[in-house]
Each structure stands twice: as C-alpha cells, then as structure tokens.
C-alpha cells in the first residue's frame, strides 16, 4: 500500500444510491461511495457484480435509473469529463488505426492541440517502451501492447481522475509492474486513481480505500486497513523451534513462511496460543497477530451476501 501522502480529503468522485435495471434484472442496486483526491481507490467485486455498469454510469456513458453522480462537484458532463481518463474493461482499438494516430486522436478529443498530443504521445510511448511501434497499425501489436497503448490514450491528457476497469487483466507481470509504476507516478503528480479488479493482491498493494460490491449491492466501503481491523485478529503466527503438543492435537496449525499459523476459533484466543508455548517451555522467536487478508474478506463477504440473497 502506498499510504497516500495527500492530506486533502476532498471528494472528486461521488456516487449516491446509484441504481440500474436492465429488463427485470437489477444490475446495480443503490450503490454509494466516494473517491478522494489523490488516493488510489479499489473497486472490487466478483465477475458480473455490477462494477463496469457502475463505472459507466459514474462517467455518464449510460444513464442511471436512480441516484446521483458528482465528478469534481458537477454532474458527469463533457466539461468535467475532460478531467477524467478512462480505460474500459473490454479493450482494443480499431485494428487499422496507427498507434500514434490513436493517441493523437484521443488526446485532441480531450482538448490537447495537435502538437501537444503528438509530443505527449511520443513521450508516453517511450515511457512504455513502445516508441518503435508508433507508426504501426494496432493490428500489428500484441494484445498486451494494445492494452498499454490504450492505457496511454486514457492518460495522455494528464487527467485529474483516472478510472481504469480491470487494468491489469491480460498483461504479463512485466507490463503489470510497468503500469503500476506509471500509476504511482500519476498519483505522486496529484492524480486520483480508481480501478476495478477482482485481483485482491493488486488492491492490497496499491489502494488506500476500497469498495466491494456483489450482485449490484455495496458490501464494504472504507479504509482498507480499517476494514481489516474491524474484522479483528483471526489468526496468530508463531516462529518457534517446535509446536507444543497441546496445540498440535487440538488446533489447525498451518506452516506459513517458516512460521506456524493458528486460526483462532470462536473459543480460542491469541493468549491461549501464547500460553501453550510458554507452558511447554518453548522459546518463541516471533509472535504476530494476523489480520484477515483482503482475499479472505472478499470471499467471506461475497459468500455471505449470496447465501442471504
């Protein structure tokens, strides 16, 4: 996690009670959250949970049936959307379009002059190590390269807010790292970044705050660290030469990174685990309280929501 250095808590994107129904299916059901200036915001949810529809509504691409949207304090019309860079989920660019032309076109549409658009396009392509492909048609690029080019089209105008729908899917690890570096750069330069994903490790690495939706409903929203703290300690990690017999018999002990993890059952406490080691006269080299992982929280919350529904 970056631990954003931006003190401001100004809201740059707010959705309130957003609802969308297609036919008889409610795809987004009263979703509310806000994104603050300068943060990296993770928008989580399983496949088909309504993330993309929410983003489309937030950016004015489709109209919500109910609810309100505010971007920089205004409805999502063209004037404020100039401050937004958007990377859609299902990616691609017209095959016959040249890479430089695509960047110049999108840059011009976002208000850049031809010269500005070209200069920035070339700089971005260099940054993404794609400058040698600038004259090529999109059809000549690999899928990953096309994705990076489209990412470049989303940020060519140095937007205040960058909204990325599943930005890392389909990229190889090298390109994922390259894109993450560029996102950090943008964040350091003051941009606000919101991205949707169902890859929890990316969120834990990048995001300050998150929102989780499933089946169109908001399940969680807030500071990631706070969400974890609210869940409480659900395991302890102990590094010691051996495991006490009293614990080995009654508890689930899982080896993890040279340590032993004990899940804390309803009747168990961290103190009980510690006492078992001390009573057995085993020297403890390291003892940690483990917060639940985002992955655990995701699975638990989504499963619970689905069992209720």
């Amino acid at each position: 996690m970056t631990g954003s250095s931006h003190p401001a808590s100004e809201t740059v994107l707010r959705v309130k009670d957003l609802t969308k129904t297609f036919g008889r299916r409610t795809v987004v059901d009263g979703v509310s959250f806000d994104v603050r200036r300068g943060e990296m915001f993770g928008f989580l949810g399983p496949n088909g949970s309504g993330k993309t529809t929410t983003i489309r509504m937030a950016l004015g691409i489709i109209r919500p049936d109910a609810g309100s949207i505010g971007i920089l304090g205004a409805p999502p019309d063209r004037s404020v959307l100039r401050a937004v860079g958007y990377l859609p989920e299902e990616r691609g660019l017209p095959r016959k379009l040249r890479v430089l032309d695509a960047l110049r076109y999108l840059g011009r549409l976002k208000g850049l002059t031809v010269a500005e658009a070209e200069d920035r396009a070339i700089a971005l392509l260099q940054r993404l190590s794609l400058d040698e492909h600038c004259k090529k048609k999109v059809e000549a690029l690999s899928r990953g390269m096309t994705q990076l080019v489209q990412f470049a089209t989303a940020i060519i105008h140095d937007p205040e807010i960058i909204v990325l729908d599943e930005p890392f899917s389909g990229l190889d690890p090298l390109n994922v790292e390259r894109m993450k570096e560029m996102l950090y750069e943008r964040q350091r330069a003051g941009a606000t970044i919101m991205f949707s994903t169902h890859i929890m490790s990316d969120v834990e690495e990048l995001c300050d705050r998150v929102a989780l939706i499933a089946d169109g409903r908001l399940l969680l929203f807030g500071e990631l660290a706070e969400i974890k703290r609210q869940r409480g300690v659900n395991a302890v990690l102990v590094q010691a030469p051996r495991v006490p017999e009293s614990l080995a018999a009654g508890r689930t002990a899982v080896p993890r990174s040279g340590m032993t993890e004990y899940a804390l059952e309803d009747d168990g406490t961290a103190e009980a685990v510690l006492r078992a080691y001390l009573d057995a006269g085993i020297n403890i080299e390291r003892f940690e309280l483990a917060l639940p992982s985002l992955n655990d929280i995701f699975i638990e919350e989504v499963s619970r929501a689905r069992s209720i529904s």
Partner: protein
Amino acid sequence: MRGPSPELRVIFAEEFRRQIRGLGFAFFTVLIPVLLLIAIPITPVVVDLVEGDDSEGVRVVTGALRERIGYADPAGVLPGRGLQDAPRQYGNLAAGVEAVRQGAIDAFFLLPSGYIESGVVDHYRASGESQGRFWGNAAAEFAFRSFLTGELIAGQVEPNILARALHPADYRNFEIGADGAVAEAIPLAQEIGELLVPMLFAALLLIGVLSGSGSLMRSLAEEKETRMIEMLVTAAAALSIMSGKLLALGLAGLIQIAVWIAVATFAMPAIFDRIPNGGELTISAGLLTTVSLSFVLGYFLFSVLALFIASVVSSSADAQKYTGLLSLLTALPIWLAGLFISQPDGAVAQILTYFPFTAPTTLMVRLGAGSDMSGGEIALALGITAGTALLLLWVASRVFRAGILLSGQRITGRNVWAALWHAH
C-alpha cells in the same frame, strides 16, 4: 452564432482522414474517371465494330478488322472490284487455311459452289482462341456479312443507291400532340443523355453507399466492439460523434462525386464526339436538379441508416452482413431497370418510388426511363426520403449511447427498443 464544438471538429477531421485514406475511397474515386478516360479512345473502335464506317458507300469493314479477314470465292459470285478496304482474297481453301495457321489473318470465309442457292458460308478460324472468342467471331462474321451485302448488289444498282442501301436511314423524330400539333421529338443525344445521366447517378449512389456508408458502419461497429466508443463518449456528445462522422462521410462523398463529375464533364462530350451522329449530349436542367437531389438525399439517408445499424449492431462482423442490406436496397431499382425502362410508371416502379430506401434510386431510374411522373409525385418521393432520413437520424442519436451496451448481443427489435428506452 456558435460554431461546431471542438470535439465535433476533431471527430470530423479524424473520420474524414480515415475515409479518404481508405482503400475503397481511392479505388472508387479513381475507377470511374479511369473507365471514362478509357472509353474516349475505345468509343470509335466500338462504334466501327457495331455500325461499320460507310462513309465511302461500300466500305463496311474497319481497317483493323478488315486486315484480319480473308476469303475465297469458288462460287464466283463476287465481282472482285479490288476495293481498297476489302478483306484479303485468297485463291482457294488451302491458301486461306494456311494464312490462318500462320496468323496472317484471324478468320477465313469460303463461299462454296451453290452459295447463292444455299446461303451457306464456311468460316475457318484458329483453334484454341480463348480471349474474346465469342465477340471476335461475331464481329468477323458481321463484318464479312456487310462486305458480302455490298459486293452482291454492287453493279446491280447505282453507287449512291448502294451507299444508301448499306446505311438506309437516319431518323428524324416528330411527336403529334393531342391537338394534332406536330413538333420535333427530343433529339437522340438528349434522349441518351437523359437516360444515361440518371442511370449513372444511380450507379454512383450504389458505389458511394458501398464504399462510404459501408465503411462508416464497419468503423463505428468496430469502435463499439473494441470499446473505444466508451472513451469517445466521455470526450464528446453522442450527437457530436454522429454529426462528425456524417459530415466527414458527406464531404468525402462530395469530393468523390466532384472528381467524377469533373472528369465526366470532360469525358462524356469527348465520347459523344466520337459517335457518328451522336450529337451534343444534353440534359434538361429540371431533370439534372431532380437527379442531383435524389442523389444527395439518398446518400444522406443511407449514411444515417449505416450509423443507425452500427449503433445497434453487436460487432463489426455483423455490420459487414448489413452492408449487403444497404447495397441491396440501393441496387434493387437498378436490377429492375429493364422493367422500369419498359414500364416506367408501372405498379412496381410506383411502389418502390414511395418506399424510402428504394425511392432515390427508383426516382433516378424512372426519370431516366422517361416516366411521366408529376412534380408533386417527385416532391412526395423526395420528401419521404428526407423525412425518413431525419427520423432515422433522431432515432439513431437516441439509441447511439444506449446501443453501446448492445455489443455482443444479437440485433433484435426488442433490444433496439430497449436501447431507445434507455437512451438519454
């Protein structure tokens, strides 16, 4: 007064650039002028082949063709006047066959004994010819028949009678009005012009729809398929996107038409100059105006239809399928041109005149075929075309944004209706 938005200008410029850089645009823009320019030198050759050149009375075979034909006359019926333009005469069958074999001539005709009674002429030619075999043989037989006609009656009649027999009539046409007044009919050249020009415009509309509207539809569908359209709609209003694309297509089409008309203005008179008795190609101003209006409105209608289809279609592959629909609607009246020429005011012609998607081409073809449509009927057909285009533009702009979501779905009336319902 506010000018077009910056986004509209950017989209217009980009779309125009794509249109004129497309292979289809370059191909069709160049194709028509090339065909017209080729037609100029070819016209006299074709005319000679079809009509012959009778300027010297008995000279019925063109120089080029004449040199490639030989004959022998064992029947002894031809006077053998030693005409400069006559086919080569050989003494017997063997000499003629050898000349064909050696390539000195392409066709050898033998008038066997008993020819006068039977009319049978033996035609010898090299085997294995493939290119233009049918037309080459037909032209040689036509040319030799003309030669035979002249030779058979030569000496029987005066030379001037012979010349006239070979070209017996140049018609002048008169029309008798209901009141009995007689007036000279429209000159042939004008009749041809008034048939040709509307037909040409109809064909140009078909080509324009195929190259312009088709590519517009495919490109928009691809933008939807690749989701680039989502990036576009966060930068520009749906109406700006559609207007920019339409204007770019319109300008590209106008440039294409301007090139065609400029070349045709030079080439058509040159072609007519080379047709004996071709006269001066003329067309009435009223007809030209109606045809031009039909063309412009038809082009607009089909461009809007292309945008509408692209708005609701789910992929560029599907869009490709609908290109066939566009060309079918445009081409249908051209396919029925034979029927319209014989019955320009028949029931089929009238029905297709008032169906918006066939109206522009049907109007052009019917007017070319000499229909007696009134001004009111023409205005109604053009009004239906324009009205449908505007209505479709309104519907297309409504479904455009919601239609973005239809990617991946099959196009049905229900999802078009849903798109219309969910539209902004």
